[in-house]
């Protein structure tokens, strides 16, 4: 992974984007995102009755003139957004051309760069059977190289238990933010236990499933012993066109189940293939999905 994740031209195009959260976030730092707290921004939020001690400057005198009552104007507080990119680094992510992990790393790098450029904070976590290593929330565009370096060094290995990893992440990260899970989701463990844990922490969760063309339409044939890259478990299969068709149907059902679950929990879901250009992902797909604007 010596080549750069994103080229300079693409980075310049990313500077015009911003990460969007469907939920109002809360932060200790001022930023460009609406905060649930009332603050001093220019954006009107609400009224409340005046109580002694309030700043006279925020009394709405026009209303007082019509109603003969004192109301205080409230303005929304603008705070920074926390973006968490959970990148699945299990062994299955090493498949594909380019590999699913490479694609996920580039997508995560682009998203983090967008966030850093908009005075938001960004974090990258390496997940597998649990939360591996990662970078805590970074602020400022100058932190981008550090994030890129981390993402460039990710290696696909180990098993997957995204449910457990998400639960672990939700326990560690108490600050609300936008959580983007980048994974091939090829595991039999319960993903939605982790999703529910993230939602319980009021994170805005978005799932991006990264697959490759070979996974969707395998070219395997003949009498094979299929070895699971993560568990090492072997299964003897005589792959015929009929079996390939059944595999495609099984994969479609698996993806459909995940998508339905995401819809049920109000979680954004998107499936992409590794041969999709990352700029298309950011500029077209994620914009349509209203993850960025």
């Amino acid at each position, binding site marked *: 992974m010596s080549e750069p994740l994103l080229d300079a031209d693409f980075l310049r195009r990313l500077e015009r984007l911003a990460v969007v959260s469907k939920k109002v976030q809360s932060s200790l730092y001022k930023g460009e995102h609406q905060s649930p707290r009332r603050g001093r921004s220019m954006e009107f939020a609400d009224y409340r009755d005046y109580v002694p001690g309030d700043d006279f400057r925020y009394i709405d005198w026009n209303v007082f003139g019509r109603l003969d009552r004192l109301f205080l104007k409230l303005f929304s507080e603008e705070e920074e957004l926390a973006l968490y990119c959970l990148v699945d680094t299990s*062994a*299955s992510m090493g*498949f594909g051309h380019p590999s699913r992990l490479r694609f996920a790393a580039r997508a995560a790098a682009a998203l983090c760069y967008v966030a850093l450029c908009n005075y938001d904070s960004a974090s990258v976590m390496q997940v597998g059977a649990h939360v591996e290593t990662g970078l805590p929330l970074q602020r400022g565009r100058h932190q981008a190289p550090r994030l890129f370096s981390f993402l460039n060094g990710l290696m696909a290995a180990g098993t997957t238990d995204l449910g457990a990893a998400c639960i672990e992440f939700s326990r560690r990260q108490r600050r609300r933010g936008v959580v983007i899970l980048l994974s*091939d989701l*090829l*595991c*039999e463990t319960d993903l939605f236990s982790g999703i529910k844990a993230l939602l319980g922490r009021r994170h805005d969760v978005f799932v991006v499933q990264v697959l490759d063309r070979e*996974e969707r339409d395998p070219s*395997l*044939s*003949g*009498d*094979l*012993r*299929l*070895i*699971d*890259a*993560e568990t090492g*478990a*072997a*299964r*003897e*299969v*005589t792959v*015929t*066109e*009929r*079996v390939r068709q*059944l*595999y495609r*149907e*099984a*994969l479609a*059902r*698996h993806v459909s189940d995940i998508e339905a679950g995401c819809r049920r929990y109000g979680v954004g879901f998107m499936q992409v293939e590794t041969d999709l250009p990352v700029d298309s992902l950011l500029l077209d797909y994620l914009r349509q999905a209203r993850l960025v604007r």
Partner: protein
Amino acid sequence: MGFLDASALGLLALIPLVVLLYFMKLRRRDRVVSANFLWARALEQSRSDSFLEKLKVNLLLFLQIAGIIFASLALARPFVHVAGMLAPELVIVIDTSAGAQAVDGGLPRLDGMRRQALKLVDEARPGTSIMLVGAARHPDVICSFSRDKQTLRRALSGLQATDEPLDLRPVLMLTASLAASHPSAGIYLFTTRSIPDASLLTPACHVVPCGGPVSNVAITAFEVRQNTAFVQVDQYGSPPVHGYLEMRLGDTLLDSRELTGTSRGFIFQIPEMRASDVLHAHLDVQDALACDNDAWTVLPAARPKRVLVVTSGNPFLEKALALLPETEVYRIVPAEYRTSQGYDVTVWDGTRPAAIDGPAVVFGAGSGRLAGPFDIQWQHDHPIFAHVDLTAVHVAETRRLDARGQVLASVPGTPLMTLDGHVLRIGFDIFHSDWPLSVSFPIFMANCMQFLEEGSVEHLPGQVRVGAPLMVEGHVFDTSRVGLYTVSDRHVGVNLLDPTTSDLPPPHAAPAASPGGTGSGAAPATRELADLFLALFLALILIEWWYYHRRTA
């Protein structure tokens, strides 16, 4: 369906081996995949699919088993009896000899053959031209090629067995001739006898043996010499038949003897024997064949035969004639010959007579010379050659004979013996052969004397074999039935006296060497199916190849 090489079916033992190979561990290639739980789900779905899907999984196994079956069947050279059904022409030859009268399982064998032939006619395709031939002493075309099945059924229903013995040689020659003139014809020979020589069978001829084991007792010889009658009674098959042999002179019962269950000869003394009396031997038994249970003979005339020998001296000839019973031999030199009046037969030895009046045997007749040695061909069934074998006779030189009358024997290039009326001409001189030293010579002379003196009412024989032509004063009488015949107030016994006919063993299928003689029962002619099964085997190999590569593609 039958098999020409059933041992090839042993290849079927490979089937369990193929099944065993399928049970053995299949060598599989290792492939690392990102996750195989989806493949497991696909397999579960595949296993829960319909029976047809399961069948598809094992299709290769079934194809291989079918391949082994087809290969072994092809090597076993199966055949079916279809050619007759497919042939545009059909020749049905049915044995109508005395053997067809044999009661077998309560019914005459002819009925069984008739039933099978009728089935063949019914199963023949519309438009098939069918010929019906009866076979006894000679083949007899009962119905020439006809497409009218009703006519053929009527002809078959009206078919009657004769009392004649079966002579297969002319029948097989006829089938060979028909096979040559009608190459597409299927020929079916329904017979009660086994085919002795497979080389006479043509490939188109299918032999259908008919009949099972039966017990029979028969009179096979009946002769009278002076006041003594000799009767040979033979037993055939098992269990032996018991009963009585009765001897009658006219209507008078002379004697009755009990049969002991074995073959033996009986001698009866005839106390008052008069010329032209009829002696009747009768077997009072219940056996398979009735026509061999009676024999008749007419006692010979008291006057002995008079034979004139015109010779310069031939001790062999004179000795052979002197041995004949009831015969007086007169010898004169050629220069003294005037006429044959007063003699029954004249024998010319080495002298060509100017004129012949009356029955005569001429040795050294003809003209020119032809040097031997020769391969002699003769008519085995002619009465003159009864019990005569010329195989070992060597003739050094013969004259060329005109083919006048009936040629009884011949050598390459010329007839050797001809019969013109009552004159028997023999091309060679006795001294130019070793025949007088053979036992067949006195038998031949005895046959000649008996045959040549026949033809007049006065010299009617006492008995003849059934089917043999009986010529009396220019008329030929049919003798196809056993019995006592009356010609101009004189009697002639017509007897079977044929051990070959009376012996009724179950006929067996034609020898394996015969291409067409492998069948049994009423099945039609054979057609090999090896090509068909070989083609199926090759087709299976191609399908298997295609399916395997499609499966692994």
